[in-house]
């Protein structure tokens, strides 16, 4: 037990002594593409324009609501700000095979990745879905939001506009 507390303090000390960055960069964590390949999430790119990463699952109602609502206005968002949305599904083996049929049938134009064993969730502190991150042109996380209620996409859009200015 004493050992454990020691570790905890050591990490905390290390962390605070070198804690000076303002924004957070993307971790070197592998997710899967819909075609079964490994993909390092830090390699997502949008030509120095903002990006949104949204964690969701096929069994999560508010997640689907959020992404369906954004989908309706996504082309406007893209035209106005150049933003790109990356939807990361946390469906595990039970429902992972349903992700592609679901998004294609829903007509989503997003870039989609799979995180079936939650490696990316853990490294970004995602404990529940939906969880949405906004990245600036330097691919740094500048804002995040847990959960979704009707209308939340407007707050997100305002933040995107601030970045795109």
């Amino acid at each position, binding site marked *: 037990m004493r050992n454990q507390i020691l570790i905890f303090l050591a990490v905390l000390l290390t962390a605070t002594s070198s804690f000076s960055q303002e924004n957070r960069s993307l971790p070197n964590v592998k997710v899967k593409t819909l075609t079964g390949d490994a993909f390092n999430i830090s390699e997502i790119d949008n030509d120095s324009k903002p990006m949104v990463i949204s964690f969701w699952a096929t069994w999560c109602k508010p997640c689907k609501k959020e992404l369906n609502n954004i989908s309706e206005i996504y082309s406007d968002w893209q035209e106005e700000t150049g933003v790109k949305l990356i939807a990361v599904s946390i469906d595990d083996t039970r429902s992972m*095979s349903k992700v592609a049929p679901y998004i294609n049938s829903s007509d989503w134009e997003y870039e989609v990745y799979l995180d079936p064993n939650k490696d990316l969730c853990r490294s970004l502190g995602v404990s529940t879905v939906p969880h949405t991150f906004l990245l600036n042109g330097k691919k740094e996380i500048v804002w995040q939001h847990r959960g979704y209620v009707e209308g939340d996409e*407007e707050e997100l859009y305002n933040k995107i506009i601030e970045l795109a200015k």
Partner: protein
Amino acid sequence: MKKIIAILFVLPFFGLAQNSSGEIHGDFNLNLQTYNEDKSIGALAADEVLLNNAYFNLLYTKDRFTVGVRYESYLNALKDFDPRYNGNGIPYRFAQYNNDGLEITAGSFYEQFGSGLILRSYEEKTLGIDNAMDGIRLRYSPISGVYLKTFIGRERNFFEYSNGIVRGVDGEVNINDILKLTTKTKALLGGSVVSRFQNATNPNFNLPENVAAFAGRINVLSGGLNWYSEYAYKINDPIGSLIENNYASGNAITSNLTYSQKGIGVSLELHRVDNMVFRADRAAVGKDLLLNYIPAISKQHAYTLVSLYPYATQPNGEAGFQIDLFYKLGKGNGIGGKYGTKIDVNFSRINALNGGPSYLSDDINHEPMLISLKGEELYYQDFNVEITRKINRKVTIAAVLAKQSYNKDVVQQQTGYGIIESNIAILDLTYKIKKGHAFRVELQELKTEQDDGDWSMGLAEYTISPHWFFTIQDMYNWGNKNVEKQLHYINLTAGFIKGANRFEIGYGKKREGIFCVGGVCKTVPSSNGITLSISSSF
């Protein structure tokens, strides 16, 4: 342990030696609940009055180097969690280094091979599942299209680790990448071995000390088609008692085929499982020390009454299939409406293996029939349709109709209940009042002659984007044949969200029942009290 401490103490000097500083991040979750006695629903008071589960994750990253710890606190654990989660500690800590495609992890890690038929170490905090490995793991990609993984470790069991030592290796190749093919059709092949070592000291039985499981998988993609199949085999793994004298081997196969294009998606899935419980300790029971993951081949529902009778895989033996159809009626025409209409249809059926699972047979060469989907004992069947339609800018409606058959005796290991046949209807209506303000109601109805009889549920929710939500919900068991059990389960919830912080407070009664995530379920006792949950990430 000492190594990790050593590494951690070297860390600050890293920071001093190099100008670029690292990053620190993490997240925090707290769940508190009070427990009041309520005789009518069978809820018990807690001696402590208040129970607590909390987690604090901390990650430090610098260039290619990462360390992480998780502090867990159960003082004492909430009643729907295993009481072996007791006290405080840091059961999760690791250090990781990444160098030219080679990733080395020392300490705690989560890993999955293929679809998980022989290995999945994962966490599902809401269910109290955390079977992290403690040991060493390497992941290596020598050339593009080749992925290798290997590990050795012990599996976590609450605040302890398994007796058995688990070793594994997994390889995956992308055929098109290695052969530099530019065909439209793409293929991935993979294979894995997981083996457990555990001393055998049983005087009466000759038990294998090394128990291996093998799996092979293939994934072929072409256009909108995607086919994935995996087969797994486990050698005999007897426990060594006279009752469970099980010298049978185990095997499982899972296969799914999906097709999708703009506006439509179809998924077909099949699995067959025979004696495929695989653990890091041969004598463990229940959900303890499981090494593999075979999810339920049925839809994971989001609404309450369609998940009143949820299925859980019977890893000792079952065969099942599932069909899904996702369709969107285009917008602009008469049927689809102005915004389009979405229709999801799902059918699943799971039954016993023909001839019974191998482990029940005295004949070591017994092989149940490969696939038999008719005439066997039904375990679960679910037919459901969900329609979602946006009527206008203010109103969205969703409706669900479902017909389910649930073998309570098999799924809950009880006797005398038989198959519960239920019909369910749900209506979900969202109304946007004005900018940021929305009102939502759910009306749900479940009709059944068996078990607890009919249920109704009503929910009203008011949300103010982006910060507030308020919910009131009542589940009413009006059709219970026992008049004393015709009870209301009322819950009030309010929440505040700001950025990465979320606060939720609730009061009400929880029904005794089964709570599932991803096809893994736990039994939740009835309770009555105030809940508080806080989550935050940074």
